């Protein structure tokens, strides 16, 4: 899977970090999402999908290989 984030949409809630801390972080200065790994392994799949689903700004997109 490949993840993209939309920094302009991100509202800094940090839900993604609560759910998938190995993959997402926030910038110290304004809380905007930082992608730690854009192609995480299978062990992160469930957490990443949940983070994308819960994101209150719909700022995370997950692209799954066909």
């Amino acid at each position, binding site marked *: 899977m490949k993840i993209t984030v939309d920094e302009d949409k991100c509202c800094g*809630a*940090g*839900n993604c970090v609560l759910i998938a801390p190995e993959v997402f972080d926030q910038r110290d200065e304004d809380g905007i999402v930082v992608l730690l790994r854009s192609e995480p392994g299978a062990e992160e799949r469930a957490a990443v999908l949940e983070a994308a689903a819960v*994101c*209150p*700004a719909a700022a995370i997109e997950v692209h799954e290989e066909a």
Partner: protein
Amino acid sequence: MTPPGSIVIVGASAAGLSTAEALRRLGYEGRLTLLDAEPHQPYDRPPLSKQVLAGAWEPARAQLRGQTQLDALGAEFAQGEPAVALDAAERSVTTASGRVLRADAVVIATGLTPCRLPGQDGPAGVHVLRGLDDALTLRAHLTAARRLVVVGEGVLGTEVAATARTMGLDVTLAGMGGTLLGAQLGEVIGGELARKHAERGVRLRLGVTVDELTGADGRVTGVRLATGELLPADAVVVAVGARPATGWLAGSGLRLGDGVECDSRCRAAEGVYAVGDVASWEHEGYGRRLRLENRTNATEQAQVVAANLLGADRPYTPIPYFWTDQYDVKIQAHGLPSPAAELSVAEGDPAEQRFAALYREDGRVTGVLGWNMPKQARLLRQQALAN
């Protein structure tokens, strides 16, 4: 339990769409139908009072998902198709066009309807803001108007005031509360926010009630306060709260109080669930009934509703969270920051417009607030709040 063979979701916005997506993610392969009263593709509401109202975003940017993602859901979307009745025992939904949809399970995700002031529907130029059409109508009016009066000192009223002021309008905000967001965040933070608005040139009339809207030739001309003061306006936004959109559920057999009353599993009746702003449920962590009007709740509750629809037995026990962006201030509120709580700064410095604070009641931390410190607020939440 065998999973339902068909599910109808009424309301295809943040909560309804998230429920559909979560169902598919959890492996649900049955029939899925989403109804919505509005004719639009599912879109997000927080940008409506911010980027969309300001004109910084094209409306399309506020869409929740792209067409490919919507197609991939394998769901039937019926937009512009309001539900007008539900029979909870039969799980059948009737729409305005006379369609009757029967399903094994029904999800209610119809959100809120804005409250109005008496006499508001007479003169032109008086607005509420809940949907995309409202936002576009208001934006069109604000680009031509000079003087805006916002009625309401809650989240929506203060955001609209900030956006309109940034657009260059002359803005007055009138509200019954003694400070801005006082009911949500208490006096200290409310005072801080009031100073910010005043600095930016918004005129504040707080602790006042509105007597009437004045008009001439069919257009609004001002807002008269109970004090007698007349606030002249060529545009008025009424942001005095909203009620759960449950009118269509009269006679459904469901318990309707402040929203659709659900148990701790977000279940309103056998095979009927409610999610998002419209849902009131028993929060087992707090030991009381709660109904939240915020964006994160819509998606978080959707995960639990989807799981429970498919046979899980999960209580929904979130830590509430909302944010608001006004001028250069990003406020994040976690937990239940009641106005009665005591506030103490935990990090940063209010004088520098960057701080995080804790709300305490009876010595317990009940809420965390970030003022231009989103990450630090989230970290404090992880340390101090639990459910």
